[in-house]
């Protein structure tokens, strides 16, 4: 799971994202355009660009495939790289036009492609290009000219400023400088962003470990139960063998061997079935947001536990049975 999450996250172009900290009164605070030039003058800031994000909630959930609603970003066409968009399939929108580039996930969900029109805030936009960043949020959105978005949403401000630092600069220091200089802003460096993501991944990882653990635990109970039943049913057989003169050790060795064969086989069959079901399942769901990752750790753990619990479940009752007097063991039916 960890691996699959990481593939969906790669770094955007800007190292620091600046937003308005006075986020009071419902309306998220926007930033004045003049602030962009202020930021460019901060030491070690090499570039900065304003970005406006506007979302339009779907009229009804059934009409829109994307329950998050349509998210449109307005940005300078020449500064798209700061938003982490480097490769555009097709062409980039012209400034002040009603052209848009859209993420691959957006295309997929709305079943549109280059040349199609999409409607946003009552205006038609022509898709001129598509892109894929690997970040779900962006791949679900459309990017258009900042001027156009400001016009149609009736604002002269931006919602965030993406800041690129000079090469070799310490992002954390630059970020701190910005906060010191301008009280009303909050900043987020890309490394802070990724550590936040790491936390999320950590939670997912713990969850998946807990799920594997639970699965292994439930499996272990099954194995112990089966082995105990198998050996219990064979108590009479153990009695026969003892009365004929088999040594307890020999009987135990035989049962240990059988247990090993049984648990190893069931471990192999279980693993194959598990992979098959997971592969079929992910195809049925038809998602490409998650990829299946098989870590040897899980298999070794599951295998080891299977064999250990198999031996405990099989050999312990066998040991007890082998300690019985033959006549007592023979009484089991």
């Amino acid at each position, binding site marked *: 799971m960890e691996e699959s999450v990481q593939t969906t996250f790669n770094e955007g172009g800007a190292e620091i994202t600046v937003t308005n900290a006075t986020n009071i009164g419902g309306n998220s605070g926007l930033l004045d355009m003049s602030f962009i030039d202020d930021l460019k003058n901060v030491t070690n800031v090499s570039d900065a660009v304003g970005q406006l994000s506007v979302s339009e909630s779907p009229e009804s959930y059934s009409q829109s495939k994307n329950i998050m609603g349509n998210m449109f970003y307005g940005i300078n066409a020449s500064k798209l790289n700061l938003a982490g968009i480097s490769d555009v399939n097709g062409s980039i929108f012209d400034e002040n036009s009603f052209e848009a580039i859209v993420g691959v996930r957006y295309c997929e969900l709305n079943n549109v492609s280059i040349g199609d029109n999409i409607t946003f805030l009552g205006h038609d936009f022509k898709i001129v290009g598509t892109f894929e960043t690997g970040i779900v949020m962006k791949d679900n959105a459309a990017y258009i000219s900042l001027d156009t978005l400001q016009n149609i949403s009736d604002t002269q401000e931006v919602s965030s400023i993406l800041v690129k630092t000079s090469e070799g600069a310490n992002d954390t220091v630059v970020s701190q400088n910005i906060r010191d200089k301008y009280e009303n802003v909050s900043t987020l460096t890309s490394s802070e962003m990724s550590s936040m993501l790491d936390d999320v991944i950590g939670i997912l990882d713990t969850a998946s470990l807990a799920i594997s653990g639970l699965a292994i635990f439930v499996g272990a109970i099954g194995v112990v139960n089966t082995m105990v039943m198998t050996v219990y049913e064979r108590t*009479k*057989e153990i*009695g*026969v*063998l*003892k*009365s*004929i*003169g*088999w*040594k*307890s050790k020999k009987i135990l060795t035989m049962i240990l061997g059988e247990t090993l064969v049984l648990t190893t086989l069931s471990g192999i069959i279980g693993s194959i079935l598990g992979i098959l079901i997971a592969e079929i399942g992910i195809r049925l769901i038809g998602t490409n947001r998650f990829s299946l990752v098989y870590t040897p750790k899980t298999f070794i753990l599951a295998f080891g536990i299977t064999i250990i619990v198999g031996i405990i479940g099989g050999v312990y009752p066998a040991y007890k049975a082998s300690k019985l*007097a*033959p*006549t*007592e063991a*023979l009484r089991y039916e």
Partner: protein
Amino acid sequence: MELIRLTNVLKQYDGGAVTALNNINLSIESGSFVSIIGPSGSGKSTLLNMLGALDSPDSGQVIINGVDLAKQKDLSDFRRQEIGFIFQLHNLLPNLNVQENVEIPLMDAKMSEKDKHRRALIFIEAVGLLDKRKQKPNKLSGGERQRVAIARALVNFPSIILADEPTGALDTKTGRKVLDVLRFVHESINATLIVVTHDRDVAKLAERTIEIRDGQVINDYYNR
């Protein structure tokens, strides 16, 4: 020569509620043929289990060949080499065929596989089951299963043959055949043969008959 000696053997079940053997004192000669007779529940099977080292008494001594069984740590070698036990219920292994069942006691014997097969077939032939040697026990009749159990008990030429109602499940004719096999081994290798039965005619075939009731010896006599 004395082979088996029981002194004050007591065996109780269910925390003393049932006394299966009550102070048994007994001596059995090597090479003899002894029958044990008595009503159901009198303690015949329990006594035979003591003689075959399959169970141990609550108190008292079981001495076989001068060895106190209570002082033996591992009786498996003794059971395999000296004892041939034929259970009241045949106790065959259901997953093995007739021949494989008969060969179990030979598992550790120092002989080639071919010799083991040959030895097993001699006894399977003796109990008249050569044509059924590849059958699983669940395909056999009760009497046939009992005969397989007999072949298994005899295959390693035990010095003591203990048979618990070997003819109980058989018609008179087959029963006699089975007894003939037992007596043949008893006579040819001079094995001690102890047979539990409730059939007086069968009991009379033995040199000596021990009658028990309520876990006690009430009669002990020679038939000729």
